[in-house]
C-alpha cells in the first residue's frame, strides 16, 4: 500500500477512533465527535495538499 491518500485516511481513522473514545463518554457522542474529527482531518489534509501544490518543494 503506497497511496498517500489511503495512508492519510487510515491514519485519520485510527486517531479519530481513539480521540473520539477518549474525549467523550457516551457512544453516540463518541461517534459524532469521532466522525467530525475524521472529516476535519481528511478535508484539512486535502486542503493543505492543494495549498502546498503550487509551491516549488
Amino acid at each position, binding site marked *: *500500500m*503506497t497511496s498517500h491518500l489511503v495512508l492519510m485516511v487510515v*491514519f485519520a481513522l*485510527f486517531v479519530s477512533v*481513539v480521540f473520539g*473514545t477518549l474525549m467523550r*463518554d457516551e457512544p453516540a457522542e463518541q461517534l459524532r465527535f469521532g466522525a467530525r474529527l475524521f472529516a476535519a482531518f481528511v478535508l484539512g489534509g486535502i486542503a493543505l495538499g492543494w495549498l502546498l501544490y503550487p509551491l516549488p518543494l
Partner: protein
Amino acid sequence: MRATTADREQSATYTYLICALAWAIPGAGHLLLGRRQKGLTFLIALTLMFAFGLWLEGRLFPIESTEPLVVLAALADVGIGLSFFIARATGAGAGHVVALTYEYGNAFLIVAGLMNMLAVLDVFDIAQGRK
C-alpha cells in the same frame, strides 16, 4: 487515622498498578475499571495501529543518548507497552529506510504509543474518581 492512611496508600498503589497494566496492554486499565467499550476500542485500535506501523516498515527507535530526537521517538514508541518489547524481541520494527512507507510507518508507531499514554492518563483520572 492510621487506617485511613493505610487505605490511601493501598488505593494509590492500586491506581499505579492499574496504570502500569494500562500501559502494558492498551485498554486493559479501562477494562479493569469496568469501562468495557472504551477498553475494547483502545485494545483493538491501538494494537492495530501499532501493527500497521510495523507492516509499513516503520522503525522502533532505540534509546540512544547521543541523538536527542531519536530518544524522543523511542520514548513515544515505548508508550505502546509490551507490544514494543515483543516486536523488538522478534526482530520486527527494524525499519527499512528506503521503503516508500518508512515515514508513514514511523508516524503510525509513534502516534500509537503517544495515544496509549493519553489512555493511561485517562485511566489514572478514572481510578482517582475524577471521571
